[in-house]
């Protein structure tokens, strides 16, 4: 039975594929350079992402409803399609590994100081692979559920933090130099380029014409979310302190104290965040799995999921020797890699499609 997801679910998957891991680092990345104007950066980033969105829409227009790789093969030939699959596979492997590592780092720093990292990483991978093995339909449903729950929890937290806001922290507005502002909006662009998972979701969508729309909504949701998160942390902690904190969002939430009973409710939001992190990991593992299936001409098999899970977990654990190396990697290299990879591959596919389309047209004209 072919699994299908609705546009709403696709939007939820895309938003979920962008926000959760960004939530941890975005405020820090952005505010370091943009200072109190950090909340502007995600809006700028959204503008930067528009060309990519255009490309996605253009590609989805030309999509003919066949399985993704068959379609690419039909347009570019086998070698090129395999190349694309391999590149994307590598990207999603690194993506999954960095998510798993970042996630387990956080858990082990925040809650499980003495628990071996490997155990936490394995548990995360098991859950992610389990969700992924249930198929794209389940990923869609879980994403939707998680999105609603996270929004709810975020709302509650926004409300509880009310007493902590100091709007003066935003002043003076527009102080940051345009160049700095641009630099600051690069990391969000990096995270936002992950909306390209829509390409892999496209074959499963009930209405493939809505793929572009889902990507747009996903990107918009994520940008708004970034804005909100940056604004909250700024309002609570002020630009200067944030720059020195590893997880400013959670520190900000930790300051809530209403009466004797409502304290330390950051854990509640962390739980919602953990849920979306699991979902994100499963989306990336799913994409990785898809690309592996095609590149090596594998048949879907449950043993394969175990292998893929172990591979991702091992990559996550042994690629970086230290936790600080992970942060360094995520702060710098990953952002650049995300931008380069997503923009380049999609641009190539698009141009290729244009070219192939023209060739086909020309052939038609000849015959």
């Amino acid at each position, binding site marked *: 039975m072919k699994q299908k997801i609705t546009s709403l679910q696709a939007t939820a998957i895309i938003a979920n594929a962008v926000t959760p891991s960004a939530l941890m680092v975005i405020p820090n990345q952005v505010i370091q350079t943009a200072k109190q104007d950090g909340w502007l950066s995600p809006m700028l980033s959204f503008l930067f992402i528009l060309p990519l969105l255009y490309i996605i829409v253009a590609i989805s227009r030309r999509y003919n409803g066949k399985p993704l790789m068959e379609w690419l093969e039909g347009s570019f030939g086998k070698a090129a399609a395999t190349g694309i699959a391999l590149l994307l596979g590598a990207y999603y492997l690194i993506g999954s590994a960095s998510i798993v590592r970042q996630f387990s780092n956080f858990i082990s720093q925040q809650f499980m100081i003495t628990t071996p990292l490997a155990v936490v990483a394995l548990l995360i991978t098991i859950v992610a692979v389990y969700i992924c093995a249930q198929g794209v339909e389940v990923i869609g449903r879980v994403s939707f559920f998680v999105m609603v729950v996270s929004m709810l929890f975020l709302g509650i937290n926004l409300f509880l933090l009310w007493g902590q806001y100091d709007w003066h922290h935003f002043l*003076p507005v527009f102080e940051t130099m345009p160049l700095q502002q641009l630099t600051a909006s690069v990391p969000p662009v990096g995270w936002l380029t992950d909306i390209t998972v829509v390409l892999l979701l496209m074959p499963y969508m009930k209405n493939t014409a809505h793929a572009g729309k889902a990507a747009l909504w996903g990107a918009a949701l994520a940008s708004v979310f970034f804005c909100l998160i940056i604004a909250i942390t700024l309002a609570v902690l002020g630009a200067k302190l944030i720059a020195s904190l590893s997880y400013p969002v959670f520190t900000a939430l930790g300051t809530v104290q209403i009466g004797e009973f409502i304290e330390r409710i950051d854990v509640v939001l962390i739980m919602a965040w953990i849920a979306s992190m699991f979902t994100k990991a499963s989306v990336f593992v799913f994409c990785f799995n898809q690309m592996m299936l095609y590149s090596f001409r594998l048949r879907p098999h449950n*043993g394969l999921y175990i292998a893929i899970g172990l591979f991702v977990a091992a990559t996550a654990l042994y690629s970086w020797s230290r936790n600080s190396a992970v942060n360094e990697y995520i702060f710098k290299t990953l952002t650049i890699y995300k931008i380069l990879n997503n923009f380049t591959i999609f641009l190539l596919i698009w141009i290729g499609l244009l070219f192939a389309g023209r060739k086909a047209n020309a052939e038609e004209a000849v015959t």
Partner: protein
Amino acid sequence: MTAVKTARSAVVLAFFALLLTGCWDRIELNELAITSATSVDRDGEDWVVSFQVVIPSTISSGIGIMGAGSSSAPVIVYSTKGKSIREANSRSYLESPRKLYFAHNRIIVISEETARRGLDPILDVYLRNPDARETVDVLITRGNARKVLEQMMQIERIPGNGIREINNMEEKYLSTLPEVKLYELAMSLSSDSAGALLPEVYLSGKTETDSLKAFEKTTLPSKLRLGRIAVINKDKMVGWLSRQEGLGVAFIRNTVDMTMIAPACPDDPSKQASVSIGSSTTELKPAIRDGKLSVKVQIKASGSLTQIDCGIKDLNDPATVAALEQAAEKEIVKLADSGWKAVRRLKTDAVGFADLAHRKYRKQWRKWKKDWDSVFANIQVEIAADVTLTNVGLSKEPIQVERLKEGKK
């Protein structure tokens, strides 16, 4: 189908294998030493950290401090010494049967000496470690900080909690001493003005109340009190403000919620009225005059009359009320002025003028930033107050028995 089964059982097995190995971070409640207060002293180059640890069984059994069967003290205090705060912390394993647990730490008391030598290490410890809350109240004490932890309290069974409550109440109803949480301290020290205020807690009385025996009487030989306000400049303490000055600074900083002022009577300066301020907002208006920064402080307060000893006759007369309001305004201006003079004397921007200047004059700020101290010293401050008496109480004239007897107005 068999493949599905194999995969599933493998996943389940791996999962349970994981579970069997678990429990690294598990810690039972009766393995915790719940710390309710911490203090930091310096001994030469060493740090002396003291902990006030709650003994749960003596607290929860019995009612009240002298509840049935709880003849032992509700808390125990011990100190450890080390080259750094965390090293001192870790030495607690040498003497404590339980793991020190800081998430419920309510206050941290810092000795004056420590504060004068720098607060950075304390901020670092609290912001770096997930087990310590950033929401502890920070207090300063003169002399040995451990002494504060040893002191027991009358109503609250856990002294650490009690001090926090006092601090909280005071800030809410008197607004003289601020309640400063650790992250707030870090925020104000990292802001442009780099100044902060901390409340002082001290031991008043001759001997110490460190034994339950003292609670057999209604009067305690000594007790904990909030005192003056410590001024911190760039992580180091630089001096004290009196409570008067503290209230004045609070007016300028716009941190007054509720407070009490005692303006002199309009007709007789030796006598006083009491005005309870119910709400107060302060507007700071920076301006540049002759290249110099000047700040106009506009305090707008409303309150009610709670006591009066003046020769005024009719409190229903608008003119009388206006005169009283003017007296209150004068008092507030006096307070704020003394506060401003005090922070200028200490060369510390505890009133946040730097942030103000940065927000309003971005261009000049780049120049001022380099030498803020001298700019700060030359700021012209104009203080104006506007008080509205919304309520004069239940009697419309001062109660003076002599006058009442004669029945004259």
